């Protein structure tokens, strides 16, 4: 039977102390952020109104709304998705369904890890060198979107690969044994069962892309434009850069304006993330096997 020796009691006391320490550490990691979010809501909340969302900035960006920046972010994110989603899904399908276990595959995986790890400002330099200057797109929505697309490509690849690999191998083997080609198997069985997982990844990418600032600073986003962009070769304002500008570059900004911009940006990003997480949880609850 269990004997409660002094040694044992001592051990459980030690365990209890460590447990509390780790709990406190977890709390200290999360608490400041909750405080910050509260402050953003308290200080930025009053700034947000219908006019804030739909009007142009006026009086040297010290008043008015953020409409062109909001719209610009939507343009940039949408165009970035157009490039990165097909490419990312293709890469994930290759890695999950076709790639042999060889050196080439290892190099591809390493490249993806590094693509995610390269500093955002280096992506900005690349975008400037490759798209703005070499391909002569100029500082434009197109150049900025391409830069963002390459930067967030790993997000789509990783999420897609994961959801493809969650489809049981037995399904593939059953299809192959009926004489289905790999592509027929992917199209009819693997992809339909992975599509919600892929969507989760895409939403996550939207959230990442919307918040990026450095990669678009020199490739297509402008501090201020008095008009809306008319083509992908025009520059645009963007919400993330707008926050940087009103917080650091513009004198005499009323106190709550930058808080309002920050709140709006955080709200968009967190909403997208929550959507993606909620989607994932629902998915887990209604498996087809």
């Amino acid at each position, binding site marked *: 039977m269990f004997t409660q020796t002094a040694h044992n009691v001592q051990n459980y006391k030690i365990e209890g102390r460590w447990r509390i320490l780790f709990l406190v550490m977890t709390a200290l990691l999360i608490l400041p952020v909750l405080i910050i979010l509260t402050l953003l809501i308290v200080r930025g909340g009053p700034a947000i109104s219908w006019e804030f969302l739909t009007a142009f900035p006026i009086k040297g960006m010290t008043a008015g709304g953020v409409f062109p920046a909001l719209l610009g972010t939507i343009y940039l994110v949408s165009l970035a998705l157009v490039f990165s989603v097909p490419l990312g899904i293709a890469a994930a399908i290759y890695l999950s369904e076709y790639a042999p276990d060889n050196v080439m595959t290892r190099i591809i995986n390493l490249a993806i890890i590094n693509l995610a790890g390269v500093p955002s400002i280096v992506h900005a330099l690349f975008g400037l060198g490759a798209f703005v200057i070499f391909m002569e797109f100029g500082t434009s929505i197109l150049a900025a979107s391409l830069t963002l697309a390459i930067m967030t490509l790993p997000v789509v690849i990783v999420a897609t690969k994961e959801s493809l690999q969650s489809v049981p191998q037995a399904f593939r083997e059953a*299809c*192959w044994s*009926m*004489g289905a*080609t790999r592509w027929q198997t992917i199209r*009819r069985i693997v992809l339909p069962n992975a599509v919600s997982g892929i969507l989760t990844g895409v939403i996550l990418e939207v959230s990442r892309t919307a918040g990026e600032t450095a990669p678009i600073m020199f490739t297509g986003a402008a501090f201020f434009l008095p008009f809306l962009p008319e083509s992908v070769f025009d520059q645009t304002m963007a919400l993330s850069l707008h926050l940087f500008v009103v917080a650091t570059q513009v004198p005499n900004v009323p106190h709550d304006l930058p808080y309002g911009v920050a709140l709006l940006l955080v709200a968009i990003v967190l909403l997208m993330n929550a959507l993606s997480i909620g989607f994932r949880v629902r998915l887990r609850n209604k498996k*087809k*096997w």
Partner: protein
Amino acid sequence: MKETNQKASGAPPVLEINDLSIAYSGKTILRNATFDVQNNEIFGIIGPSGSGKTSFLKAVNRMDQLTPGMTTTGSIHFHGYDTATWRNLYSLRKRIGVVFPLPTGLPLSVYENVAFAPRISGVRQKVELDQIVEKCLRRAALWDEVKDRLTSLGSLLSGGQQQRLTIARALSQDPDLLMLDEFSIAVDPVTTMRIEDVLKQLKSEISIILVTNLVQQAERLADRTAFFLNGEVVEVGQTEDMFNGRAKDVRTTDYVEGRFG
């Protein structure tokens, strides 16, 4: 070793295995197998696990091409054609139905599970598909149980039903050869009996390879039986002989009488 079960027509046997060896990443799983499988027979393969039975099935429908690290030497002739020189392996696999140990209903409706193979072979007509689906489900003794819920998910049927669905699916590709790999492992005894009856009827139309861990099942069903042990084909012979003390190798007798395995 040649058994004279061959039809008078002189058509080549469905499978001729010649000096076949299988290895995974250099490790040999099956060594120098030589035998053939005749038309319209049930060919049993018995042996303890790890003796190379499943790998043999994989080699027959050329899954080595889709399995990393798997290599084969020797030759397999299917209806007289060397499968190693086959240019479109998908068309080969269409001629060979496989039933795996664990029931695998695809996450499609019952109907679409069975219509899968005809569809990828280009059958588009609804009427024709309906006919194939009904015929195959009937042949797999599943029709009566699922005819009212053809649209429900195949992967959510019971284990026994899924296994019969898998057989219906294998039949839907109209194969010449049906290979079953320990089909009864996850199935209740009643369903096992029903499937066994189905196999006996199917024999008149197609050839069947029955890999089984139950020696009695081989005894009940197989015309001829092969005994695999540790990657070696110990012997191939008439099932009757093997189970009545007339096996050529003493290890076979030991195994079928349950002294090891």
